[in-house]
């Protein structure tokens, strides 16, 4: 008999479809990157670049984070997920909405499919926000990690809502100016408000946990929270009121300080870890923390050479690439293999535990394939970035090919975990 507060985790039936959807989205995005790598040498507001960006931001980044957070947020808030059906529904709405939206961008038609896609995505995110808000409200724990994560989700909803407004604004005059004018705000509340804060909120809890580190520093996390959010609000204000581009140094400086604080936090957690040997998945996740600074550095260059932008549109694309194919992809690839094997292991073995000798969760995927995919990813990422800087098609294609190889190997391992059957004794 077992007594005490043992909390059942969120059902794998809710979480796994998100992982599968994300893995396939990553593959599709990498195929498109290879086929249309030349598009990234032009202005970022072009159909193919927009299609790839939204597959990466929504199909890959957001879908896997939604799935993982349904599993991990109960750990952060020390409570349970409020409603499973709402979580299912968010998958269905987002799963249907994303291809419609991407099709709209690809065909550059802001008509019905894109509008319906946008509405479905917003419904999904609203359900996600409401579900986690109620879970947090019901939980006794109101900690800094949960606050950061909840704020990130609120920014996500702001991002998708603004995105929907921008889609409609192409056909009906809703906003003061053309939709393209607001793209920068739309992109940055998504990047800094949603992705960056989510990574900080979850990473600051999970990284010390996986490393078995003694380090905690709530004050630092609160400071990071204020810096990122204040920086972002200032960025939006500056952008709306049209201040001189150099003023953005202030906003970038604040966010960079926040990122620096998070890198410092992770470094301290790493230094004070008890578990000395760090596995490959964790190494890639830690590498992604350092990669956080790259897009900001690119943004600084972007501002410093603002006069060159008209002749070198690929710098904006480089910034987007560093965000979506850089730190975001690195942390997702790393964290996939720190979470998915455990979810499937629990599904397959939780009734059998103790009755037979079970494999370790990390045995559910092929580590050699993971190592090759990590190398392929790092080289692909570096080559494609160089290709964007120098506008070299051959280097772009080589980089894209390596990233496609990464996506194929990633999918191989993800499906290997999904299809895992109990080991016969």
């Amino acid at each position, binding site marked *: *008999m*077992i007594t*005490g*507060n043992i909390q059942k985790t969120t059902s794998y039936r809710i979480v796994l479809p998100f992982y599968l959807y994300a893995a396939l989205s990553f593959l599709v995005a990498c195929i498109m990157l290879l086929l249309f790598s030349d598009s990234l040498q032009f202005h970022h507001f072009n159909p193919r670049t927009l299609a790839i960006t939204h597959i990466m931001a929504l199909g890959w980044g957001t879908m896997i984070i939604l799935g993982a957070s349904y599993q991990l947020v109960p750990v952060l808030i020390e409570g349970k997920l409020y409603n499973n059906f709402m979580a299912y529904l968010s998958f269905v709405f987002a799963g249907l909405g994303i291809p419609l939206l991407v099709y709209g961008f690809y065909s550059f038609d802001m008509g019905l499919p894109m509008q319906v896609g946008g509405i479905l995505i917003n419904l999904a995110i609203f359900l996600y926000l409401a579900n986690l808000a109620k879970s947090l409200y019901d939980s006794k724990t109101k900690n800094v990690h949960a606050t950061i994560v909840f704020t990130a989700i609120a920014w996500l909803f702001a991002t998708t809502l603004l995105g929907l407004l921008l889609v409609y604004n192409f056909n009906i005059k809703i906003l003061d100016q053309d939709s393209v004018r607001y793209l920068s705000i739309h992109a940055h509340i998504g990047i800094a408000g949603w992705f960056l804060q989510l990574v900080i909120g979850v990473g600051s809890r999970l990284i010390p946990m996986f490393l078995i580190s003694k380090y905690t520093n709530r004050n630092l996390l609160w400071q990071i929270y204020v810096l990122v959010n204040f920086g972002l609000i200032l960025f939006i204000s500056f952008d709306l009121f049209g201040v001189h581009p150099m003023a953005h140094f202030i906003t970038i400086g604040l966010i960079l300080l926040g990122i620096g604080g998070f890198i410092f936090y992770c470094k301290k957690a790493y230094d004070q870890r008890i578990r000395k040997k760090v596995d490959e998945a964790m190494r890639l996740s830690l590498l992604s923390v350092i990669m956080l600074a790259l897009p900001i550095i690119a943004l600084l260059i972007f501002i410093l050479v603002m006069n060159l932008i008209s002749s070198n549109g690929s710098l904006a694309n480089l910034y987007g690439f560093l965000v979506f194919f850089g730190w975001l992809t690195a942390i997702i690839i790393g964290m996939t293999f720190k979470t998915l094997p455990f979810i499937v292991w629990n599904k397959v073995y939780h009734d059998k535990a103790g009755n037979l000798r079970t494999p370790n969760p990390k045995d559910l995927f092929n580590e050699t394939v993971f190592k090759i995919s990590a190398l392929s990813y790092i080289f692909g990422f570096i080559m494609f970035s160089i290709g964007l800087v120098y506008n070299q098609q051959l280097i772009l294609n080589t980089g894209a090919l390596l990233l496609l190889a990464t996506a194929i190997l990633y999918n191989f391992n993800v499906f290997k975990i999904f299809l895992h059957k109990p080991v016969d004794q």
Partner: protein
Amino acid sequence: MKVKNNNPEKCTEALFALAEVIDPEIGLNVVDLGLIYQIDFFEEERKIQVSMTLTTQFCPMGESIVNNVTRAIADKFQKYSVNTMLVFDPPWEPARITPEGKEFLEGN
């Protein structure tokens, strides 16, 4: 960390059995990880009371670790009923890891 008990001899046997129960993520057994707080034997009722914790209250592997602990004790002491109580006060902290556990983690 010392495990409280009311029967040192049987507690040693129980801990020996629990050394087979591994935290799947960390790869270390629950005894060296310091998850076991107390094991009491009640001879008249033929009952064993295990008090344990988890590294985090909502550990996704928690249910399976607790099941394994209960099963390992039940297998070792088949004439007893086992009650495993999960507690989070005091919460687990890395200082609870035994020197053997630390040695394992430093090498792994």
